[in-house]
């Protein structure tokens, strides 16, 4: 995997990626499809893994791969505008080149623990990005998994990332239930209104599901509490952590929480594993 030096390239040396498609998801989120200059994917990855995107001379940052590994032609990244690098990425156009290295980190255990389970995806805002990769993977291997529930919330309707795909594809798939919510009521929205944890409680899922949780820290905290109340154990809940990552390979010393490096041992953690880590995230 990431340790493979068979290409002769050090893990810190990136490849050039070409942006082949840019979609504006929300006012501050865009999705970028990236390919190798000659076409095709830059590398293979697993759902939940990340890659380092870099605009040379500007900055570099770790982003989760939004597309499913089953997509053959490209990797997609949904990126929220929140700083110098993301500002710059948002100003790029189709055909522009960036550098990409990765994939980095672990992934959701789609081939092991998650197999055969009923899955509950809980996402808030841009937190949908890593989960979408899993959702895509699960959809393409539908027989290997039980039912799928997707609870996704955002500030407003226009802040829902991948809205068209959610309403157009996912919600029409067999055995998939989509539950959308937005924080405040608005015109043209007849769906649920309220925060994700509250909606979670309202929906009252059975506690034999496996939950995948991703979103802003506050949402994760309350959703986790709700899940506990609903009878989930922490071993049934997976989430992702995000800290400052630089090297991506667990050596530069930045992103550790206790003895774990988020970039290498994460970003996906089972909640009982997080409990064992010192409180420094």
């Amino acid at each position, binding site marked *: 995997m990431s340790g493979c030096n068979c290409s002769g390239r050090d893990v810190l040396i990136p490849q050039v990626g070409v942006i082949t498609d840019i979609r504006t998801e929300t006012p501050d989120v865009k999705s970028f499809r990236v390919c190798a200059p000659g076409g095709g994917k830059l590398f293979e990855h697993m759902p939940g893994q990340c890659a380092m995107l870099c605009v040379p001379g500007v900055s570099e940052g770790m982003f989760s791969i939004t597309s499913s590994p089953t997509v053959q032609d490209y990797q997609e990244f949904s990126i929220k505008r929140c*700083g110098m690098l993301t500002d710059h990425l948002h100003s790029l156009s189709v055909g522009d080149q960036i550098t990409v290295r990765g994939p980095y980190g672990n992934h959701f255990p789609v081939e092991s623990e998650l197999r055969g389970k009923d899955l509950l995806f809980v996402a808030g805002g841009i937190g949908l990005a890593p989960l979408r990769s899993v959702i895509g993977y699960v959809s393409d291997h539908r027989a290997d998994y039980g039912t799928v529930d997707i609870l996704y919330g955002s500030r407003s309707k226009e802040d829902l990332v991948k809205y068209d795909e959610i309403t157009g594809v996912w919600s029409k798939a067999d055995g998939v239930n989509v539950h959308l919510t937005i924080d405040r009521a608005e015109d043209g929205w007849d769906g649920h209104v309220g925060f994700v944890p509250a909606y979670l409680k309202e929906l009252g899922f059975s506690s034999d599901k496996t939950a995948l949780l991703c979103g802003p820290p506050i949402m994760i905290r309350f959703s986790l509490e709700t899940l506990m109340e609903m009878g989930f154990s922490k071993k049934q809940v997976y989430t992702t952590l995000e800290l400052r990552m630089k090297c991506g390979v667990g050596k530069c010393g930045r992103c550790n929480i206790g003895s774990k490096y988020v970039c290498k041992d994460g970003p996906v953690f089972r909640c009982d594993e997080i409990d064992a880590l*010192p409180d*420094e995230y």
Partner: protein
Amino acid sequence: MTQRLSREELPRLYAAIAQVADLFLPVKRAGKTNFALWNTQTEVDLDTLKTAKSPKDLFFPQCEPLYTCDWREGNLTVTAQALAERDFVVFGVRGCDLRGLDVLDRVFLSDPVDSFYAARREHGTVIAFACREPEESCFCRTFGVDCAEPGGDVTVWLTDGTLYWRANTPKGQALTDRLDLLGKTDDADEQRLAAEQTAAREIIDRLPYANLFLDGWNGDATEARFASPLWEKLYRPCLACGACTFACPTCQCYDIRDYDTGNGVQRFRCWDSCMYSDFTMMAHGNNRTSQMQRFRQRFMHKLVYFPANNDGMYSCVGCGRCVEQCPSGLNIVKVIKAFEKEAKK
């Protein structure tokens, strides 16, 4: 097999090694001794026990280019930095610093391998240098280093008049084979050498920090140690400089940065310090906002997290540089002693 050379012949030895490979050894410049490339003009200093900086930067340089990006005809190209290809010899590495390399190996040679470091390790031959007169700041014994028998590809001992040389590895032997000025030793030499070692070990026993109390420091100690109120008191004098981390033979945190050369962007990495306030700073926050947290991180890493990931191996080697160099008189010894005092209360 131990070989010998009279002390006066050392310059010839250096010249002979330099014929074979680049030779780095302790050199005194502007009053401080550090490892530097040998040439006939350099002032070699084997009398200073510890170089101010550890020799780690010969394998993990303070700053090294990784690759260059440039736009050629509108296309972005990435050109990786070539890996080290020249053989080199590091002469005069103390036992503690040699252990430091073992620690770095655990980091950089574990999956995924850091090819820049690996190439240097492959091309470098380490001549370890046994200690004769350890100093008050030394505590390598605590971490199981025997400074009188340090190991390395080659070990050398220096007595008043003689240098003793013993190759330990095939790499060391290969170097030895290319040097024809080393002489044979006799029993008297062996006895003298043994006596030197005994004397050095006796001094070690008398050092104030020879046997620090490490109970409670291990890979499983995270919770207990992390939450200790002692950190709050210990960190206060810390200036948040990087003197300890840059002097340390095992600190390996690095930063990756870009540099606009005018003809492209060069990406390089350079040493970083977990003591620096912006070390973990992100656009939207910082997981270690206080100096206490950063201070704690450094020692937790050396004595808890690293052992947790490396079969109990500590990433402190007891070289004592932090003891000597911290501007505020802080060091790992103080930390260990503070916890010892607490434990024994």
